[in-house]
């Protein structure tokens, strides 16, 4: 009886090939902005549908309507053949829809199994019973996890496994994944896709949201493309290719090549020697690394998220203390200097944190105010002079075609792409000799990404030493001259990007061996 109770919400027995979700003419407005305009989307049981679109194309809005966070203004949604009104996540779950968000919705201090059982009806199962049940589900689809492990002790991939188990535990047959591969290594991505394929065989309907074309072609049966909130087309994956998908997504032919200008004068300018950095909780973030940054080239930094990239960048910029070692800039040690002194020397950090505004920019100030943050100490005396900053800001708007009503408009009102241009542009106008950028294209659409690549290439041509910390391996390999691979804070290899293979880098990212 209890067993019955804890696997609720089983959608009615669903035949493979029938529509699991059928959206017709779904429209959603936020004020005057139309986020979804007459969108059609269908997915059948036993099928994987990719939802493709650039940032701001309305993918997430559409999914939020399926998960009950927003309510459509017009249009109809049918789930398993029946008209559905989804007013809350509870409704959505009861209809058999399982949503896996990009930012996992897990309670950090709970164990995996408590998270899995969270919010399900029925009585609270004793730990042992729950454990057996979770392990049973794992076996069914070939997942491995320790049900008693707490979430904060888990890797990103393990957390995702927990999210998938949450859906399976509830017996939901419709699975929606929002950019699930953004945080995974290539190996983990393969594993995830194997699981999704197995779920497809078992008759689940899967929607995967992504903007990575390679993955779309790899995993999906059909692709639905959105652009600026509008439904563009649905194509069969077998009958399409990257070029066609890009055109549908961007709306015009786009060259997917990234320029890689010849290297300039290669002079060693920044040198890390035996650098070790410890996180506040005592764990080692960067472990005894030594490397060299040269002018006139782009040094790519690859690695799974959290392999020490952030700490390394921040230590060079003086934001983070190093435990041991040195960072030599033209024979001067940067460790122990404060950020202002380092930035005066010409070493600049253009860090794009996950939330873009969290670090680097003050959200409620305009571009002028944010430019001032870097130059406030230039004039002597207690008063500030906004004129030069205003001039610089206007120059940036022209040069990078930043879209903003005025240079005084708070940056929080600007779109993600424009915010990133401001962040990067501000570092560039101060003519750095070393430019460190971390995830500068995170969350940007294709056009803005290419603007950023061009900017970095321009810096390289001006003989600036550029460090590019990135997450997309393809981009890293096309843009950088050398790629340094980090794994658990150690350098596992520095390879020539012109000759290295993707497999080789992927192996280095996990420490040179296959990792469970």
């Amino acid at each position, binding site marked *: 009886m209890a067993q019955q109770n804890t696997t609720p919400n089983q959608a009615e027995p669903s035949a493979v090939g029938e529509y699991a979700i059928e959206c017709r003419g779904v429209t959603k407005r936020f004020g005057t902005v139309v986020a979804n305009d007459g969108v059609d989307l269908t997915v059948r049981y036993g099928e994987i549908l990719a939802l493709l679109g650039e940032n701001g194309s309305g993918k997430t809005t559409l999914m939020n309507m399926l*998960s009950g*966070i*927003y309510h459509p203004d017009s249009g109809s949604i049918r789930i398993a053949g029946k008209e559905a009104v989804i007013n*809350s*996540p*509870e409704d959505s*779950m*009861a209809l058999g829809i399982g*949503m896996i*968000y990009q*930012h*996992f*919705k*897990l*309670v*950090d*201090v*709970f164990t995996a199994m*408590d*998270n899995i*059982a*969270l*919010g*399900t009806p*029925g*009585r*609270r199962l004793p730990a042992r019973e729950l454990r057996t049940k979770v392990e049973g589900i794992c076996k069914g689809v070939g997942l491995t996890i320790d049900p008693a492990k*707490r979430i*904060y002790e888990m890797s990103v991939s393990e957390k995702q496994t927990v999210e998938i188990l*949450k859906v399976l535990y509830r017996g939901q047959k419709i699975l929606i994944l929002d950019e699930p591969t953004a945080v995974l290594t290539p190996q983990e991505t393969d594993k995830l896709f194997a699981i999704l394929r197995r779920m497809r065989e078992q008759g689940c309907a899967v929607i995967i949201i992504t903007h990575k074309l390679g993955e779309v072609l790899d995993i999906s049966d059909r692709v639905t493309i959105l652009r600026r909130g509008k439904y563009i087309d649905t194509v069969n994956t077998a009958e399409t290719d990257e070029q066609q998908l890009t055109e549908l997504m961007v709306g015009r032919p786009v060259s997917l090549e990234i320029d890689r200008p010849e290297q300039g004068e290669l002079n060693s300018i920044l040198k890390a020697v035996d650098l070790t950095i410890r996180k506040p*909780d005592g764990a080692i973030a960067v472990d005894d690394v030594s490397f060299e940054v040269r002018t006139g080239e782009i040094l790519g930094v690859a690695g799974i998220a959290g392999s020490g990239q952030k700490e390394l960048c921040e230590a060079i910029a003086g934001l983070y203390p190093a435990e041991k070692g040195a960072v030599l800039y033209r024979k001067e040690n940067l460790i122990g200097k404060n950020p202002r002194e380092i930035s005066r020397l010409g070493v600049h950090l253009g860090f794009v944190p996950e939330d873009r505004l969290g670090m680097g920019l003050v959200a409620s100030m305009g571009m002028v105010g944010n430019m001032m943050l870097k130059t406030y100490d230039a004039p002597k005396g207690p008063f500030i002079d906004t004129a030069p900053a205003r001039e610089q800001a206007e120059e940036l708007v022209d040069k990078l075609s930043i879209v903003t009503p005025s240079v005084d408009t708070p940056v929080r009102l600007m779109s993600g792409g424009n915010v990133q241009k401001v962040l990067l542009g501000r570092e560039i106008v101060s003519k750095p000799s070393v430019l460190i950028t971390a995830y500068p294209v995170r969350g940007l659409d294709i056009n803005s990404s290419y603007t950023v690549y061009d900017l970095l290439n321009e810096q390289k041509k001006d003989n600036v030493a550029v460090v590019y910390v990135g997450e997309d391996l393809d981009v890293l390999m096309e843009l950088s001259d050398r790629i340094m691979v980090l794994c658990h804070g150690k350098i596992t290899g520095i390879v020539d990007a012109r000759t290295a293979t993707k497999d080789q880098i992927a192996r280095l990212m996990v420490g040179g061996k296959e990792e469970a």
Partner: protein
Amino acid sequence: MLLKFIVAAIGASTPLLFGTVGETLSEKVGHLNLGVEGMMSIGACAGFMVGMMTDSFLWAILAAFGAGVLAALIYAVLTVTFMADQNVSGLTLTIFGVGLANFIGIFMLGHSPSGTLKLPDGITAQMRGVHIPGLSDLPVIGELLFSYSPFVYIGIVIAILCTVFMRKTKAGLNVQAIGHNPAAADAAGISVTRWKYTMILVGGGICGIGGAYCALIINGGVWISNNVGGLGWIAVALVIFAKWKPLYAIWGSFVFGALRVLKYYVPASVIQLPTALYDMLPFVITALILVVSSMRKKRDHNIPGSLGVNYFREER
């Protein structure tokens, strides 16, 4: 002497226990309610006035609980529904609650022919220490365990019930998930808003009963202004001291209860200190606890991760 001290300490700890458990419930869903002092004051006022008029202990307790719920409702509407700042809303509730209780007290005093407000005999008898034939007559144990006002037992039962709720029930797990990560709870289909209201309101009601103890027992059944006298603030700190566990709140409030009655039980022949020093002691220790607990480095699974942060579903 020691026995008397312990018995007195348990009595003195009771209002703290109610306040701590009530505040714990609120903090478990991520709402730091600094209005404990205010909710206790309103509960004190309602409990005393209703007790005086009805001459019934039961009605007094129910009124105190209800008044606490209403006071907490102000806070819940402000912070849960309108997403106002929790600290400001809580502080405002304290100022409002203490002021309202004093105002009503003075108003009633003005209408009292005798110039004082005193509880009638019936309710006083009901609140007196219990006497269970046989058990209460046992030497030492009788006095140590079976001699208290019903308040004491109600408080302990509530603390135990809350512990069972958190540890053993599904709803308890859901509530803790809300406190740690409301977005995760929401995505798991738990109605975050409903549980936040429930916990804040029930917590307020429990604080209200704590206030009633102050008004009905501490001053011997006579109404005086400011009768909660800062105990609500100690309760806020005690939540941290008790690591957000209702069961630990029993021991935590006992320690503070002991500190409050210490001055009566330290013989002047041993050490002679000004009473002001004793009165200050609980507050000094409260401050120390807050300092020490903020230095704790180890990850504590009980601290609600979203404490003090309002949840807005569409924010991302």
